[in-house]
């Protein structure tokens, strides 16, 4: 669907799921941002992209970076009110970080000669935009840094403020930081080298998944490394950002069936997730539709041993029932009480709250046998489309609203057949 809206008195037609900031920037209008990056989920924390939006005579201030466009809104990006607000915001940031060039430039652009607020810690250079944290989580996937505390005391750092063993020293946070608050410590590199464990430490590009396994041979002095130079030349940006699609962690929907990346999937329509020394199992987005009206869900008891192909779960729905076989062998160490108590949770939230059991896997088990990564996605899409095709030629969203109950009741046998008895044929036959 397309929307028509007015920006600074100019009419534009835009896609439904665009954000205001993208459109404004595309029109060549410049508004400042500090916490926005096109590759990251908008945070909406710096508030500098605040614009004035009017609809049906009502005016309000919204942040352009995360405001979903609506039909017939009137947007003003540089009204007097907006400018006044932006100035005060920059003054506030200037009081926080008076020495930071980015903020000083913003102040100059907005013709602020001298901030009206007192700066108690002039040496401060972090504006808490969270870009580094989001980069580390969403792009690198290392989860090495995060916020701590709250309010005025909020800051960015590693847990317990000691060196994080999650950090792969990729430097993406330093790259993205707008104020230069994060600095790679070259001393740290030397420390790793001297610590003994350092010599086995893989290159940061290997840890990013960009090159095959490679142990550093330059004593972590990346500036002397050919690979490093080569990477920089190749991507013209920090390499972490170049591999972004591979690390896309957002769940996606195929014909209404939800798929979660980062999990392992089996032909039995069971997903698996390694956790510490155990594996969590649950039914995937397709098989979960069978639990939509489940009256009970029978799971193995804690302590019992489960063999591959044996019953992992039995879903009872009216007088229909279906057995879901286990893809792996192991000893059941935990059972999800919530899903037993309310069986349709396996349908409502199959990947998070609706998991089934946790097993301590047999040593012989190899989880990598299951589908993962791109393979999983391809397999899932194929299966999901096929399943959707059973009830509608157009393969529309099967899981939508109330109709899903009707669909499942009507197509129960076909679904069960498709999901649990023909898995391999479908996959290899077509």
């Amino acid at each position, binding site marked *: 669907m397309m929307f028509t809206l007015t920006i600074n008195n100019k009419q534009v037609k835009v896609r439904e799921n665009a954000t205001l900031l993208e459109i404004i920037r595309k029109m060549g209008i410049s508004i400042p941002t500090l916490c926005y990056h096109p590759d990251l989920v908008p945070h909406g924390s710096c508030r500098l992209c605040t614009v004035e939006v009017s609809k049906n005579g009502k005016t309000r201030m919204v942040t352009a970076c995360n405001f979903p466009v609506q039909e017939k809104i009137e947007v003003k990006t540089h009204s007097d009110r907006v400018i006044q607000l932006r100035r005060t915001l920059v003054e506030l940031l200037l009081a926080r970080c008076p020495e930071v060039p980015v903020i000083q430039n913003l102040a100059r652009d907005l013709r602020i000669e001298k901030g009206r607020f007192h700066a108690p810690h002039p040496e401060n250079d972090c504006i808490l935009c969270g870009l580094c944290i989001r980069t580390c989580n969403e792009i690198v996937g290392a989860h090495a840094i*995060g916020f701590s*505390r709250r309010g005025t005391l909020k800051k960015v750092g590693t847990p317990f*403020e000691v060196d994080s063993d999650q950090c792969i020293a990729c430097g993406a946070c330093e790259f993205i930081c707008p104020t230069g608050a994060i600095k790679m410590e070259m001393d740290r590199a030397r420390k790793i080298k001297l610590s003994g464990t350092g010599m086995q430490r893989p290159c940061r590009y290997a840890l990013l998944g960009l090159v095959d396994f490679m142990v550093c041979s330059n004593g972590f002095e990346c500036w002397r490394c050919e690979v490093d130079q080569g990477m920089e030349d190749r991507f013209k940006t920090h390499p972490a950002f170049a591999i972004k699609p591979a690390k896309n962690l957002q769940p996606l929907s195929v014909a209404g069936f939800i798929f979660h990346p980062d999990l392992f999937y089996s032909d039995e329509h069971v997903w698996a997730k390694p956790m*510490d020394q155990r594996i*969590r199992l649950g039914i995937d987005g397709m098989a979960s539709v069978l639990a939509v009206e489940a009256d009970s869900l029978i799971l193995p008891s804690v302590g019992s041993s489960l063999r591959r192909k044996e019953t992992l779960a039995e879903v009872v729905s009216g007088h229909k029932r279906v057995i879901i076989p286990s893809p792996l062998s192991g000893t059941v160490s935990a059972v999800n009480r*919530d899903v037993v108590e309310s069986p349709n949770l396996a349908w409502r939230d199959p990947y998070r709250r609706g998991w089934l059991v946790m097993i301590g896997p047999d040593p012989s088990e190899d989880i990598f046998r299951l589908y993962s990564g791109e393979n999983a996605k391809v397999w899932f899409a194929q299966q999901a489309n096929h399943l959707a095709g059973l009830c509608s030629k157009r393969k529309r969203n099967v899981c939508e609203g109330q109709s899903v109950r009707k669909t499942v009741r009507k197509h129960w046998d076909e679904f069960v057949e498709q999901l649990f008895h023909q898995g391999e044929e479908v996959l290899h036959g077509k």
Partner: protein
Amino acid sequence: MSNTFSLKRRKGFEKPMQVDTNQICEIIEKHGYQSSALIGILQDIQERMNYLPRKALLHVSRSLDIPLTNIYEVATFYKAFSLEPKGRHTLQVCLGTACHVRGGARILSYLENLLEVKAGGTTKDLSFTLESVNCLGACALGPVMVIDRKYFGRIHIDKIEPILKKYRDK
């Protein structure tokens, strides 16, 4: 910026308590292994161990596959959690509005003087942790002081010492 948790000090503090991973496992079990129960899990650990030992947080992080950064963020965001051992008794002074207008802040500063700690701190002998809280909902009794969940209402400065004495030796 000043680093409030110095590494040395925390290590020294961790010694008195050996972190029993079985206890942590039990708590995680009780909460049904749901990662959404993180706050409840941390509350229970805090209750049982009097603070959140680093090892315990690492254990929770591994067992529930929650990044340590998230756990650390939660543990430092909410007021209920402490990363350092607390005193044997928790002494809370209510600074809700009703207590404020009846002089709650004065009670707090008196206690800070008396115990030689700032609000949020623990006395050297580990007998008391002094905290300020935002309204305990006992406004009729303001100013209110609470020791280990026992309420002392309409508290006066001269009533405080005798009360503390009873607890100090326990």
